[in-house]
């Protein structure tokens, strides 16, 4: 079964630091997959390359049967790959609803110049946006300036954002980072729901092991810019290479 999204030998360096070194991963359709690895293993860089925010020095990114390596972020987004950011990048001085509307207008080509100024274009989008805000649970803050949301709420807003375009694949960059436990569960529920009901494929980068192990059906481990292991949580958890990657010692010499 060909993977829905895959990378092939991605290499990327910046000024002496080899961030990615032949990273090859595959994401099967309909899965909730996790991408883990120690700090500096290249996870966010890989996301940036996939979503077009950065160009790789070598390697390719494939989405279905289409190569998307050199597409710009808005084209990647239009192709059906959505992505959230580790440091939430929301439009702080727009309201929550306005933030959603900006995400919505990407998919919508105005018919003529006048519709640019008209309000009707918005009604359908407004409804859709409110539905999504309700889905993630922050609909009552729709008219609040996004900049005043708490960190956890911003994460939810980012998720709602991504959902506006109804993407086939969603890349989540540390969705559980810095978020309180209630919210983490809420997030996990939403992801499961989207995956089951809409068949959305997910790839998460995370440090929170509990979150990842509990949610993902497949986990890929990145170390020093390359994938070292990939498989279901139980296998990955006990794989020696993974322990080496995180611990950095040879277990045989230092059994605990």
């Amino acid at each position, binding site marked *: 079964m060909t993977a829905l999204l895959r990378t092939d030998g991605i290499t990327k360096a910046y000024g002496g630091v080899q961030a990615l070194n032949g990273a090859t991963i595959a994401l099967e359709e309909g899965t909730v997959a996790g991408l883990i690895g120690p700090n500096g293993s290249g996870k966010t860089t890989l996301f940036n390359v996939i979503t077009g925010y950065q160009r790789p020095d070598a390697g390719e990114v494939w989405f279905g049967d289409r190569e998307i390596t050199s597409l710009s972020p808005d084209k990647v987004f239009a192709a059906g790959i959505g992505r959230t950011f580790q440091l939430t990048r929301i*439009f702080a*001085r*727009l309201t929550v609803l306005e933030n959603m509307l*900006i995400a919505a207008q990407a998919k919508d080509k105005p018919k003529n110049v006048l519709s640019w100024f008209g309000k009707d274009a918005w009604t359908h989008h407004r409804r859709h946006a409110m539905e999504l805000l309700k889905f993630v649970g922050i609909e009552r803050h729709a*008219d609040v*300036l996004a900049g*005043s949301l708490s960190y956890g709420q911003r994460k939810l807003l980012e998720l709602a954002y991504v959902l506006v375009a109804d993407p086939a694949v969603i890349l989540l960059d540390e969705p559980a980072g810095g978020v*309180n436990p209630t919210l983490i569960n809420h997030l996990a529920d939403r992801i499961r729901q989207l995956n089951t009901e809409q068949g959305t494929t997910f790839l998460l980068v995370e440090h929170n092991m509990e979150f990842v*192990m509990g949610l993902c059906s497949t986990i890929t481990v990145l170390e020093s810019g390359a994938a070292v292991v990939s498989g279901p949580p139980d296998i990955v958890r006990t794989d020696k290479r993974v322990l080496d990657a995180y611990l950095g010692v040879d277990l045989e010499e230092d059994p605990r």
Partner: protein
Amino acid sequence: MSESPTVSKSPTSHRAATDLTPALKGGGLLALLAIAIAFPQVFTNPAVTNYGVLALIFVTAATAWNIFSGNSGYISLGQAVFYGSGAYTMGIAARDWHLEGTTVFALLPLCAAVGAVIAVPFGLIALRVRRHTFIVITIAVFFIFQLMAFNLASITGGTSGLDSPFLSWPAASYNTPFYYIAFAFAAGAIAIAWLVRRSRFGLQLRAIRDDEDRARGLGVKAMRVKLSAFMISGAITAGIGAVWFYYLNQVQPQTGFDPIFDLTLVLMAFLGGYGSISGPVLGALIIEPLTLWLNTQPQFSGGALAEILLGAIFLIVVLFMPRGIIPTSGEFITKIRMRGRAAIIPATTMGTAAGAPSTPSVTSGGAR
């Protein structure tokens, strides 16, 4: 579905900026409108209506500035490029086509169009760079235009500038038609500002202001959007510059392209509330009459004290009312109203990520 976390409802920081202030603004604007229309009928003294004409000219210019800079976040210090170009266009066209009297007013659309046309290459160059560089480019282009006005003497009249065509209106009521024309421009500019604000176009501009790269990533055609706003701003400014030229009957390079003009617009917008629609209006209505009045006082004329005072006003506004008078007074009023209410519990603090990221959970297999 699990309950969503609460967020503090403290209105001073969390309400959208328009929340409390519409009542304040709506009423104020209506009153201003009525006063504005009646003004020249009530105060027929030309010395007084002069204040009105110039104030409205600046209301227009400040609003035009805000349409672009307030929404996009790109601070333009080059509006004088359009203002002076509009003035000179009218002067040159009237001279070369031998127009005079009221027919000259028919040139206004041309002058506005010239402003829009200039905005295209200007914008294409200037809008590709980041914010600080943008400001400097607008200054550079401004100086280029001022110098061209000085140097291309055969077209622009050089240092002596241009005189406007003859207008045979009686002195007593000379100002009145100018007043209403300026008023029409001001009202039109405000209407455009309002339309832009509530439109999809305006939303895209404001998203660009907050995070341009993210906006691009979401499909906003940033250059197109910025350039359009720049052109609108340029057209309006050029148009009102032409009106100003005809009103004062002359233009020279240093008056048509005056660096203080640009900074005054910024101050006006900030005084009233940067980014809002009524902000520049209020700012212009306060500062322009004040400046004019100061220049008539003997101890202030000749420049020095006026400059010092202007500088001091700048400092006070920026340091103590950084969001401008209207938002600050809106917040002030809200604070007074909120005094009786109970304190609201602030938003739940974010917890640290549950589960340490590294080793133990992997080996112990515990975290299920």
